[in-house]
């Protein structure tokens, strides 16, 4: 005869780490649907996805890095730099079908080739490298633009970028489709590719991974490169929505993205994490902000509520693990 309390605990122990956020999210959705007429409409729901596709893309990339036990703190200013690079490429008259992959490659190089190499190959602290490259990337983005957002709307091929960032198919947001595809691809990599196994092994125990022949340094660099590539995609989406390449446009987004990954159950220490968790966490934060706006809570209070919820959710998760 098992006591109900311990049975509950046992079920929870076997549940995926994002169960807590998932339950709270569903509760939030039901609550808002019952109380706010404007909430459960096709337009509002797709708007939530549209508004959160940049954080979702950034968080997807950050999940790879966090699984290896590292964090790329510079993804916020990298977002601005990628947008400025894209602007520069368009200014040079390079066709947009080339600009798009080049922007993604630029992100991968900034993440993997710069941060990843410094952190993994030269064994520097990810924290220090992250702080340094945050300033570096920001400066590199501000210098050619005098720190001002550069207008993209008049550039040839902007219509394509605009579609990526703000288009709709049957009313469904194109950036949402891109971000969801990103999550699915990310999930497939983690589950089916040997690389996914290597990411978890390196994050779980670097020495043990090295001992069985997993190339630890290369695996980490690839994680950072994937993180950067997703920042590149996010830069395309952001520019397409705002009609501009803003060097400062990504400041602060790194914290939202990383917080969402942690909220989704990916361990700060590395070695565990899921893409589903990241998706649920981003949607939860997005829904919460949407709900607060609908209820009419002042914008600055929204930040406070979101922050408090993040801390509470992570604290609950810690309790669950005990």
């Amino acid at each position: 005869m098992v006591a109900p309390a311990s049975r509950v605990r046992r079920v929870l122990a076997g549940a995926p780490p994002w169960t807590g956020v998932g339950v709270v999210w569903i509760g939030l959705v039901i609550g808002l649907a019952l109380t706010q007429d404007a909430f459960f409409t096709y337009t509002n729901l797709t708007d939530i996805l549209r508004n959160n596709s940049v954080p979702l893309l950034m968080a997807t990339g950050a999940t790879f890095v966090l699984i290896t036990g590292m964090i790329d703190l510079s993804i916020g200013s990298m977002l601005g730099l990628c947008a400025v690079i894209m602007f520069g490429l368009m200014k040079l008259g390079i066709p947009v079908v080339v600009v798009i992959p080049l922007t993604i490659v630029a992100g991968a190089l900034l993440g993997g080739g710069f941060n990843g190499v410094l952190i993994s190959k030269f064994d520097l602290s990810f924290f220090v490298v992250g702080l340094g490259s945050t300033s570096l990337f920001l400066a590199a983005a501000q210098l050619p633009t005098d720190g001002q957002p550069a207008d993209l709307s008049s550039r040839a091929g902007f219509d394509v970028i605009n579609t990526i960032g703000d288009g709709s198919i049957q009313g469904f947001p194109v950036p949402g489709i891109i971000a969801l595809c990103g999550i699915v691809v990310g999930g497939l990599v983690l589950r089916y590719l040997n690389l996914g196994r290597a990411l978890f092994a390196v994050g779980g125990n670097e020495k043990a991974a090295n001992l069985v022949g997993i190339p630890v340094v290369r695996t980490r660099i690839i994680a950072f490169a994937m993180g950067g590539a997703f920042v590149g995609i996010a830069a395309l989406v952001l520019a397409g929505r705002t009609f501009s390449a803003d060097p400062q446009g990504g400041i602060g987004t790194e914290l939202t993205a990383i917080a969402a990954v942690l909220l989704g159950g990916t361990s700060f220490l590395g070695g565990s994490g899921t893409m589903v968790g990241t998706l649920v966490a981003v949607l939860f934060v997005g829904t919460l902000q949407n709900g607060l706006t609908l209820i009419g809570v002042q914008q600055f209070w929204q930040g406070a509520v979101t922050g408090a919820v993040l801390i509470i959710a992570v604290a609950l998760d810690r309790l669950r693990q005990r």
Partner: protein
Amino acid sequence: MSLLRLEHVSQRFGGVRALSDVSLQVEAGEVRGLVGENGSGKSTLMRVLSGELAPDEGEVHVGGELLAAGTPSARLSAGVGVVFQDAHVCPELTVAENLFLGDLPKRGGVIRWNEVFAEAQRRLDACHIELDLRQRVNQLTEQGKTMAEVARVLSRAPRVLAFDETTAALTTNHVEDLYRSIRARKEAGSGIIFISHRLQEILDITDTITVLRDGEVTGTLVTSETNEDEIIRLMVGRSMEGQYQRRPIGRGKPTLEVRGLQAGRIDVPIDVTVHSGEIVGIAGLVGSGRSTLLEAVYGLVPREGEVTIDGRKVAAHRPRAAIAAGMGFCPGDRRAQGLAMHQSVEGNAAMLVTGTRGLFTLADRGEEQRVMRTMYDTLALKAADPSAPISTLSGGNQQKVVLGRWLARRPQVLLVDEPTRGIDVGAKREIHELMEELAQAGVAILMVSSDLPELLGMSDRCLVLREGRLVGEFDHGVSEEQLATAMAATAVPVAAE
């Protein structure tokens, strides 16, 4: 009334009895040697003495006063100082600061650095230790760190003082320095416990000797009236019954050949040959270079010299090359080097499959399942839920995963470091049987162990390492006494006074 009295101390760790009813008295001005094999309970007893561990039963009295259990700070003020194997010094601070941890001389809240250095120098002089006070500890050599730890403990002028294998990390000159410090404390009337695996040192410095075996005191001797043979007999004296005895088979062709290997502590080139179907054991004390030897052969640490398998050269410094050449390696510390402790059993089992394939290929689910099945079938792995964290398994089952990863690959050469450390008797036997089977199948096995009965029972040949040098080779059938003597003898004779 003795200065130090340990009375009826007993301690269990899970199912293992680490200490059972150990009593020990040390007088003022006495140096007591404490000897015993690995796992005999010496270090546990030191943790009880320092107050770090509150024993299940037993009391510690100093100067006739009963000390409260489990309170290291109270022990310090009662005048108990223990020099542990792993230095307790703060690596980022200078030697001088470490001598004053927590009580730097201050005036009006400002630290008086002149006084700090002057007083630190006085303390060092008083215990006959030479160190640069202004150097940060992490810039010191390993020996320097050990001496800094010794200075830290001695500078408090403890009434009761203990050294837990402090000399293991020291060369002969530093051992002499340590002897001088010990004699100075002895003159000052301290009671001293000295632990070492090197019996010559025990005979050199101690007045009396207590021998531990399997957590019990098996003898108390007066140093001037005893000899190495008697000590070893009391240390070993275990019946070999129930120990696994390997059935040696004829030795095959040479498989693993190591020529002129140098790495880390091993500064004199070493040659090792392991034949197909042969188990070669490596004996040596901590710090003898025994683990370094395996790591260098596998390519985990930089090496000089050549390693070949069946005559084919194996590239250095890349475990991947070693695996491809047919090597397997089970590390000595499975938690630190072998397993991702909070990941699943199946995840840990599959790690090698990942390591031997390209990153951008599909994970080989079939092979991963085959490895998992091998562990259940061949090794009788007890893990009800393969998706549960591996930390929920017993030590023996964890070790089966570390070892079992290699089985599916059938390596030609298997390097194993402490294959049965910290696991129960049943699992130990199963692992021994597995190694035996692998040898029968032609695998060449090189095994490091600090468990002498295991080395004797399992090895066709036994090599002895001491201070980075290969000092002996014994065939199957060597006695535990012979092996222990070869391991413990002081390599460079200490100059007579």
